[in-house]
C-alpha cells in the first residue's frame, strides 16, 4: 500500500496528470484570458462596439510608434487624413505633424463596470480627434479590436450556456434511460435518434425561422442558445445513457442496494458522480459545436444582428472576396474562433486521455 499521507481519488489523480500536460495548461490559460477579457470588455476596449466613424471606413491598423527621432518616448500615434486616389478609392495618408499620445486609463465612453460601477475609464485611448485602430476598422469605421472583445462576450458565452443547458437535459434523459432501462430507455433513445437524425443545419434554419422577426438582439441571442442546445442535447444524452447502463451493473451498486441504500442515494452518490467526471471531456468537445453554430448563423445574417458584435456577424463582412483583398484585417474574428475551438478540442482530448488511462491513444 502506498502510504503517503495525501490520498488522491482517481479523479484528483487524473487532474494531476492533466496539469502535467503543458499544452493543455497553455490552452486553459488562453481560454481564461479570453473569458476574462470578455467579462471586462468595456474596460479593455478603447471604443464601444457601436462607436461609428464613417470617414474611417476600412482604415488599416494604425501603427504605434515608440521612438520620436530616435529617442524613446511615450507611445504615440499619427493622425490620419482621408484622401481618394485616382481610382476614387479611399486611401489613408499618415499626417506626420499631428501626434496623439496613447494614454493609459484614458477616459472614454461611459459604461457600468460589471453592470454596477458607472465609470468612463478605458485601459487605453487617444484624445478625441485622433483614432486608434489597433487591428484596423470595419466598413463603418468601428474599431475591430473593441468589437472583437465584445464579440467574444457573445460567442464564448453561447458555448458555455448552451452546453450547460444541453448537458442538464442530456443528464436527465440519458440518466433516466440508462438507469431505468426497458421501455423508458427505448422511447427516450428513439427520441434522441430523431433529434440526431436530422441534419443539424436544416434544423437550425427551421427553428431559427420560427423565431419571430421582431426579436431584438438579446432575445435572438437567447433564442440561438435554445436552438443550439436543442440540437446538442441528444448526442450528450446518448453518451450519458451508455455510461449509466454500465454503471448500473457495477457490483458496488448491487452492494449498496443490499446494504439498504435507497435508489435516490445510489443515483446521487454512485451513478451521477461517475457520469459527471467522465462526461466532462464530452462537454468540452461539444462546446466548439455551439461556437461554430452561432458563427455560422450570424455569418448568413440569421444570428446576432448588427450593431451588436459577435465573431460570426463580424465575419459576414468578409463574405466578399474584394473586401478581403483590400481589408484582410476583417478576418481577425475567424482567428479567434479558431483559437477558442482548438483550445477546447485540446483540453477535451487531453482530459479524455487522463480520465481513461487505459483508453490512451498513444
Amino acid at each position: 500500500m502506498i502510504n503517503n499521507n495525501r490520498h488522491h481519488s482517481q479523479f484528483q489523480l487524473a487532474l494531476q496528470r492533466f496539469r502535467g500536460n503543458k499544452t493543455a495548461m497553455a490552452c486553459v490559460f488562453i481560454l481564461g484570458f479570453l473569458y476574462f477579457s470578455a467579462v471586462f470588455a468595456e474596460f479593455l476596449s478603447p471604443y464601444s462596439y457601436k462607436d461609428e466613424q464613417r470617414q474611417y471606413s476600412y482604415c488599416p491598423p494604425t501603427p504605434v510608434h515608440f521612438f520620436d527621432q530616435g529617442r524613446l518616448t511615450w507611445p504615440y500615434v499619427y493622425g490620419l487624413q482621408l484622401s481618394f486616389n485616382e481610382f476614387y478609392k479611399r486611401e489613408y495618408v499618415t499626417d506626420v505633424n499631428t501626434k496623439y499620445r496613447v494614454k493609459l486609463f484614458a477616459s472614454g465612453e461611459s459604461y457600468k463596470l460589471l453592470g454596477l460601477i458607472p465609470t468612463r475609464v478605458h485601459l487605453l485611448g487617444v484624445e478625441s480627434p485622433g483614432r486608434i485602430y489597433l487591428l484596423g476598422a470595419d466598413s463603418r469605421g468601428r474599431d475591430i479590436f473593441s468589437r472583437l472583445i465584445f464579440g467574444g462576450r457573445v460567442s464564448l458565452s453561447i458555448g458555455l450556456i448552451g452546453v450547460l443547458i444541453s448537458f442538464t437535459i442530456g443528464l436527465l434523459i440519458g440518466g433516466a434511460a440508462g438507469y431505468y432501462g426497458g421501455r423508458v430507455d427505448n422511447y427516450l433513445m428513439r427520441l434522441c435518434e430523431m433529434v440526431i437524425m436530422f441534419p443539424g443545419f436544416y434544423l437550425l434554419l427551421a427553428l431559427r425561422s420560427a423565431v419571430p422577426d421582431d426579436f431584438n438582439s438579446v432575445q435572438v441571442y437567447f433564442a440561438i442558445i435554445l436552438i443550439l442546445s436543442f440540437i446538442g442535447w441528444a448526442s450528450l444524452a446518448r453518451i450519458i445513457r451508455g455510461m449509466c447502463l454500465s454503471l448500473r451493473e457495477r457490483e458496488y451498486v448491487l452492494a449498496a442496494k443490499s446494504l439498504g441504500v435507497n435508489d435516490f442515494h445510489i443515483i446521487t452518490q454512485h451513478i451521477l458522480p461517475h457520469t459527471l467526471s467522465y462526461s466532462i471531456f464530452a462537454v468540452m468537445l461539444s462546446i466548439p459545436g455551439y461556437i461554430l453554430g452561432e458563427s455560422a448563423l450570424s455569418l448568413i445574417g440569421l444570428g446576432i444582428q448588427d450593431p451588436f458584435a459577435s465573431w460570426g456577424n463580424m465575419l459576414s463582412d468578409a463574405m466578399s472576396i474584394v473586401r478581403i483583398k483590400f481589408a484582410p484585417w476583417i478576418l481577425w474574428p475567424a482567428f479567434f474562433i479558431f483559437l477558442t475551438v482548438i483550445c477546447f478540442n485540446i483540453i477535451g482530448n487531453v482530459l479524455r486521455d487522463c480520465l481513461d488511462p487505459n483508453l490512451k491513444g498513444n
Partner: protein
Amino acid sequence: MILLELKNIKKYFPIKRKSWGGQGAFVKAVDQVSLSIYPGENVSLVGESGCGKTTLARIMIKLIQQDSGSIKLEGQEVANLKGSKFRKFRKDIQMVFQDPFNSLDPRFTVFHILKEAMTLEKVRYRHFRDQEQRIKELLAAVDLPVNILNRYPHEFSGGERQRIAIARALVLNPKLLILDEAVSSLDVLIQDQILKLLQELQDKFQLTYLFISHNLKVVRRVSHKIAVMYKGKIVEMAATQEIFQNPLHPYTKELLSAAIEYKSVRRSEDINIHPNAQLVEKEKGHFVLDV
C-alpha cells in the same frame, strides 16, 4: 431452528425470440430449488457456469425477485416485508461479491465505503465517534491497519480490497454471509489467507457462511454441507466428507474426478434431468436427485 429456508424457488429467464410471438423458450436459471441453512453450518453451492448458483444467491438477498417459491428467514416469510421488518432482513443477510476491483466504488474512501454500510443503523451510528470506533474495530477484525481510513480502493491489492468488502458486509452484524465466488479471482496464496480469515471471523461474529463456487477444492475446507447444482437444480446435497468420499449422482462424480484428479469421466450420453425430479434422502442426511 432453520436460519434461512428456501422452498422450491423458481426463476426462468425468457430467451429473446424473433418478435412474431409464439411460445418463447425459457432458460430455467433456478428450477424448483429447496435448501435449508442452519445457524453455524456453512453450506456451499457448487456448480459450473450457467448452473444458476449466482441467480439463486441474488434471489436470497432479494436483489432479484423469484418467479415462485418462498423464502423464510428465521421462520418468517420474507416475500412482502415492509419497513422495519424489511430493514431487519437486510441487516441479517449480507453478500461479498466476486470481483474485488468492481465491488468498491473507486470514488469512495475506505471510511466512506464502511460508513455507507451504516445507513440502516443511523440511530446507533449517529456520531462520528461511534462510526470511527466501529470501523476501526472491523478493520482490525479483517487484519487491515487502522490508518487507511482516507485511502482509495485503487491504492489496495485484490486481497486487501476483498478484506474491505468483508468488513463492509459485517458492519450490520449479519447472521448469514453469502460469498459469491469471493475468492476465485484471487491469487492462490491470497485465496488461502482469506479463507483462513473467514474461519476466524465465523467464531468471533457467530456467522453462517453460504459459499458460491465453481471448484470443490476451494470450498472443501470451510464448508460443512455441499450442494451440487446442475442446470438450475440441486442434484446432490450432503455433508462435505460424504460428498468427497461417496458421491452418488453422476454429475457429482464427474465434478469430483475433474477437480481432484483432473480426469474427465467418459460419459456416454448427456446427464438428463427430469423436469420435476425431487431430492430423495438415499442415506442419513445425503440427498440425491431421483432420475
